[in-house]
């Protein structure tokens, strides 16, 4: 019902991910052109000029410059910048450490969104349709408590989440090993979750999932509540069970929300800088948790190779665009668009 998709927003799908769907086109009353007054001129200058100036100077201009720098061998503090074409890019793609970092980002992009979304969808479904199967569709009793608590991590700065979990994973004094040994699993005594290359990545992923499940759960709960109850009731009368209802009614109808969540989580997985920096600032054992963003930061601000770092930034940006494009494509190919317009 509320999914008012205009033709226009369908054409530029890029918008749909980040923008609330535009209101239906309003009737614009054509006015006769009035003479420019001081009121009008000053209004436009301030209202449009001021925000735009800040935006262009601090956001757009650096983005454009980054592309330019990526083609030079600039070291930042020397005045000379030599144009070296795509040499930086060649260097990046033959650099084993950067490729390792990129591989880790790919791992994150594959697993983080799926795990987070499945977990939050399950929790959201339990909250909204876990109630009685007779009569009106209703949610679980007292479920708002779960929803409020699950959202807690979203309000915590990522760096604090990282530091906190760094302590929880601590081999000797940490909460996790304390609990596991308390349950009689003595093999985990002094087990370094973040210091072992087989577990470091999984442990790190869990921290990120922990931080975001609550947010997406709330998002999905809102989406599910936006579905007219008659649809659930009709499905129930037709004899659909809970699982069938979730798969055939809920998921197709909140598909847009799932796509948005997928893109947000994917972009986060391609960055992941804060979490990695807090949990294993050096890249982890055997570089098993090193990500591109860390390598970029190190190359720029520690090694001073700004040209090379900018090229890494461009690679990161292109990876983000490819990822978003893929998600839209897959959603489109699997018939996403026609399902959502009720």
């Amino acid at each position, binding site marked *: 019902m509320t999914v008012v998709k205009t033709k226009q927003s369908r054409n530029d799908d890029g918008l*749909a991910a*980040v*923008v*609330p*769907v535009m*209101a239906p086109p309003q*009737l614009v009353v054509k006015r006769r052109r009035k003479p420019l007054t001081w009121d009008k001129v000053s*209004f436009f200058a*301030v209202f*449009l000029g*001021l*925000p735009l100036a*800040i*935006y262009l*100077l*601090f*956001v757009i*201009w650096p983005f454009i*410059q*980054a592309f330019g*720098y990526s083609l030079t061998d600039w070291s*930042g503090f020397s005045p000379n910048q030599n144009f070296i074409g795509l040499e930086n890019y060649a260097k990046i793609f033959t650099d084993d450490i950067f490729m390792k970092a990129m591989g880790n980002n790919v791992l994150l992009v594959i697993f983080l969104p799926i795990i987070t979304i499945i977990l939050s969808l399950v929790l959201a479904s*339990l*909250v909204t349709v*876990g109630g009685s199967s007779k009569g*009106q*569709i*209703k949610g679980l009793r007292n479920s708002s*408590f*779960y929803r*409020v*608590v699950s*959202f*807690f991590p979203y*309000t*915590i*700065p990522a*760096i*604090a989440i990282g*530091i*906190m979990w*760094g302590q*929880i994973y601590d081999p000797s*004094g*940490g*909460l996790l090993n304390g609990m596991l040994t308390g349950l009689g699993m003595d093999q985990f005594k002094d087990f370094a979750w973040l210091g072992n290359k087989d577990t470091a990545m999984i442990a790190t992923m869990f921290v990120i999932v*922990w931080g975001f499940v609550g947010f997406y759960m*709330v*998002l999905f709960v809102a*989406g599910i*509540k*936006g579905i007219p109850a008659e649809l659930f009731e009709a499905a129930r009368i037709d004899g659909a069970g809970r699982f069938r209802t979730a798969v055939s009614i809920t998921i197709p109808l909140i598909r847009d929300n799932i796509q948005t969540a997928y893109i947000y989580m994917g972009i986060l997985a*391609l960055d992941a800088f*804060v979490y990695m*920096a*807090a949990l294993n600032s050096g890249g982890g054992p055997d570089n098993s948790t090193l990500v591109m963003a860390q390598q970029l930061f190190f190359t*720029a601000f520690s090694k001073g190779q*700004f040209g090379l770092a900018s090229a890494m930034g461009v690679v990161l*940006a292109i990876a*983000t665009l490819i990822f978003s494009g893929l998600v839209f494509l897959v959603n489109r190919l699997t018939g996403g668009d026609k399902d959502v317009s009720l």
Partner: protein
Amino acid sequence: MTTKVSGPEMKSLHFQPRTPATTTGDKVVGAVSHTALTVWTLIVILPLLWTVMSSFKTSSEIFASPFALPSQWNLDNYTKAWSEAGIGQAFLNSVVVVAVALVIVMVLGAMCAYVLARYTFPGSRAIYYLMLAGLTFPIFLAMVPLFFVLKNMGLLNTLPGLILVYVGFALPFTVFFLFSFFKSLPHEITEAAALDGAGEWRTFFQVMLPMAKPGLASVAIFNFLGLWNQFLIPVSINAAGPRVLSQELAAFAGQMGYAVDFGALFAAVTVTVVPVLIVYVIFQRQLQGSVSQGTSK
């Protein structure tokens, strides 16, 4: 838009005219659901409680047992974190930076969104797409050049520089969100204001802005969380300047290897987490509404 969540649909989900008999199947499903949700709630809340508890312990107590309660409840760790580790100063810096940036970005964002949504002029579409570009590119790409932009302006490692950058990067989201909001406000009201002799400025500040209050509140909440939690921007362009909270926290944790005071570290984390958590619990109804507004629907 807020009515959508609390409107008739939701009522029909919850309103029950009579209580139907509960079947065994329902009871099982209910029990399983509650169990699953409780498990997740514990996973969320135990680390937080453990952090708060540990913030009252000494380092040796923390190493002795992760579960034992502190031998005495005092605020030593908090005093240490607040003054010696500089968390207090960083907290104040964060408050100032985020508050100023938030006010500026809300005013500028509302103005820009209003112009883009209510006036058609050549280039308005282009500006709109330019804003979109700022949302899709990763902030990382901009950090290196931004460093030098600020350096050239003499704003590197200063709080005003940080504020301006925060404003710039929070602007696209603000404009997008408010764009659709201003678009949905009725045109008749602007016309009435114009007939009554209000100029463009007056129409905006006295008529349109008050009407956009619900939208402004939602965006402000998201911007606050985003800016308060920002880490990458301060560590890149404010590395040697007066530190904000997230920076100080990272620095504090980074030097832990040399001067181990885990109690103070836990206290620092608690100080960072608790104020925002309290604000969230107070405003959580408003926020739950904004989540549904702020994304795709």
